[in-house]
């Protein structure tokens, strides 16, 4: 069954990719890339990476599609004709050949004797319950054992947010496209009454789900990255239905940079507090007299940091595009 699903999904993935390259209508391309992301999410899911799947579905299929649609509202709907050069194809072939060559000696997927499963992974599986005391090993690795990488990733997202704010900025009164217009321009839906009402019902559910994902990370797939993205998706949906103007009133642009910055800062400060209490940087064990409780406190704090920054950056990026003056 597993093989069958895998082959089916991957074949479909290739077909969709070719379709994205060949299709001339940009709107179709955006929709197809949404499907591409959903397929990727399904792929991740059957490989037991549920948290990655969740992120891919929320960001890849959800927010990215919305961002593309917002961008489409500012440009044309069909691709401009241009002569395609063969150089990218050549580069692709040159890059792909060695990867295929490399797979001949690679261990089989899921082989218990593969080095990947023999070295650090068993240690994580064995020690997590004792050292961190949570059932989700992925969260333990991301948040604690390799928490420094995750700190880095949060700052990658922070940097992206800074970049968008620097280049585009988010302006209060310049919003020229209302949600209705955006929906019409982008999707050509004339009767948008039904999506509007259904959407409105969905928003509180989405926000609540985001909170659940945020605080569920230790027990199952979830955590700050996914939660921040889902929360932002809820508000983006709101601004699509009610208009960017109205969303900007609810969420004044002056507040956004605070969200972008405070999450990343919180994460870094947790690291410094650990230092001040006598541990190494990001050593949460010193946060409480009981090291395991200390780890819990640390994980919850950094996950909040992650969630806040991801939410702030996602919303900033959306508003920076959607609230641009259309010419």
């Amino acid at each position, binding site marked *: 069954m597993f093989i069958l699903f895998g082959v089916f999904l991957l074949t479909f993935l290739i077909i969709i990719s070719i379709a994205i390259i060949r299709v001339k209508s940009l709107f179709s391309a955006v929709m197809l890339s949404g499907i591409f992301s959903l397929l990727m999410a399904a792929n991740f899911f059957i490989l037991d990476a549920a948290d990655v799947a969740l992120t891919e579905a929320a960001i890849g299929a959800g927010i990215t599609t919305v961002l593309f649609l917002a961008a489409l509202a500012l440009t044309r709907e069909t691709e401009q004709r241009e002569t395609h050069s063969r150089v990218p194809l050549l580069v692709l072939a040159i890059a792909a050949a*060695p*990867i295929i*060559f*490399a*797979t*001949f*000696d*690679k*261990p089989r997927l899921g082989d218990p004797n*593969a*080095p*990947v*499963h*023999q*070295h*650090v*992974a068993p*240690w*994580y599986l064995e*020690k997590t319950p004792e050292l961190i005391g949570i059932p989700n090993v992925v969260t333990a690795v991301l948040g*604690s*054992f*390799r*928490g*420094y*990488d995750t*700190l*880095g*990733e949060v*700052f*990658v997202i*922070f*940097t*992206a947010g*800074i*970049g968008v*704010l*620097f280049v585009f900025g988010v302006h209060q009164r310049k919003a020229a496209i209302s949600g209705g217009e955006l929906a019409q321009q982008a999707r050509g839906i004339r009767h948008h009454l039904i999506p509007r009402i259904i959407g409105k019902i969905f928003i509180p559910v989405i926000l609540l789900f985001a909170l659940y994902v945020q605080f569920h990370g230790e027990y199952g797939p979830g955590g700050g990255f996914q939660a921040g993205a889902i929360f932002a998706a809820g508000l983006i949906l709101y601004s699509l239905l009610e208009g960017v103007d109205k969303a900007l009133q609810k969420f004044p642009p002056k507040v956004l*940079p*605070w969200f*972008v*910055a*405070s999450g*990343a*800062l919180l994460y*870094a*400060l947790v*690291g*410094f507090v650990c*230092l*001040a*209490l*006598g*541990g*190494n*940087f*990001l*050593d*949460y*064990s010193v946060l409480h007299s009981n090291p395991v409780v200390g780890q819990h406190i640390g994980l919850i704090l950094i996950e909040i940091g992650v969630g806040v920054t991801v939410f702030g950056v996602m919303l900033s990026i959306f508003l920076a595009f959607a609230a641009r003056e259309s010419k």
Partner: protein
Amino acid sequence: MSFANHVIIFLVAVPLAVAPVISLLRVRHLPWLMACITSLFVFVLSIQLTQSVLHSGDVTYALGSWPAPYGIELRAGALTAMMTVIVSGVSTMALWFGRYGIYVEVGEQRAHYFYAAWMLVLAGLLGIAVTGDAFNVFVFMEISSLATYVLIAGGPDRRALTAVLKYLIMGTIGATFYLIGVGLVYMMTGTLNFADMEIRLADVENLRPVLVAAGFITVGLALKAAIFPLHVWMPNAYTYAPSAVAVFLSACSTKIALFILLKFDFFVFQKNLAGHDVQFSWFLMPLAAIAIIFGSAVAINENNIKRLLGYSSVAQLGYILMGASFVTYLGLSGGILHIFNHALIKATLFMAVACVFYRVRSAELKDFAGIAQKMPWTMAAFVLAGVALIGVPFTAGFTSKWLLIKAALEAGVVGYLLLAVVLIGSLMALVYVWKVVELAYFKPATADLSRVSEAPLMMRIPLWIMVLMTLYFGIDPSYPVRLANAAAVSLLGHLS
């Protein structure tokens, strides 16, 4: 908490944590001031790190107190320490120097985001330098690259945006190649820690995924390091970036990629892949030679001084690479010393050009005609740094080229050929430096220079500090030479 044990993490964590704070400061000059103080603080720390590395060997640090390879380990040897000094030192000087220019070029409105991005570049480059973990390199590469794109996009010319897009695409391909390589190594070894990788690769050496990984990592990092012929993004990115950014990046960003390339190839692959040292040599040596001749030739024909300096960097990176490709003690220490010297010299040259740009609003060669009469201090600095770039004795450029020449003489027949390349390259550097000097000193002004005056004192002071350091390290190179020698020993130590 004993401060001394945590110096290495402070190098990364302090600028990282300062970045979000700066992004919220909208008060005039405060973002700049805070960035300067942070950068200076980090520079002092990196000097301290260098001292302790020279005295008591490698410094390690376990993040989250988890032992490697389960947690992430920071590790600093001589080469790392030198990179941190270069990055934080040039960043401090460029920030001090760039204050006026950045207000004009970037605008006061969004300066706080700009300085936040600067801190992120600083933290990212230092993070790459001090880590002992291959995936962690990628994470900090992402931070520094993204933030670099932001800095360059702040350039006053709209062409900065197309230059940045090109850089972004190339940089992303480079980083992706690196990640593919790391993924393949991880698949075969189950570890991401450099030291652990070296040991565990011995079991799977010469299997296809490892060979392919070595290829992907080398090509990806070569792209990031702007090694010929993968340099096409670099000159334009420097040309259209704000002047102070060009100063910072020209000295640091490509060299960090080169540093990781050396680290990966020497620490991880040399020992484990049969004949890797020979392949490494034969692959990079011709590229280095071509880079020197080609970069210099294009520089001679350039009419924009910033781009001229960019192509000169392509050539100078060739010298560094040539030193590494000898895979000998002399060659490596010459190449590594040239990393230090070139950072100093090229930052100084970009500073001098930035001074002229600040007054004349142009970096076109023709607009430099007669400028020396109006800006004698600036052009004198340019001449001295230019002399160092050529490699004249008693300047920093000489010592590293001297080591490279000695290394070439050791290398037999091929060595004589490379010796010729080094000498021809130096003569070509003389030609393109002279081109600027001749115009600035001996040609009458073509444009109206009556309103042009010398650059502000606060730009000239850092510029001249850099010039004096260039001269100082030409006369007494013992400190960088000691570091370069220690670095060469440690790189070769993995090759037995």
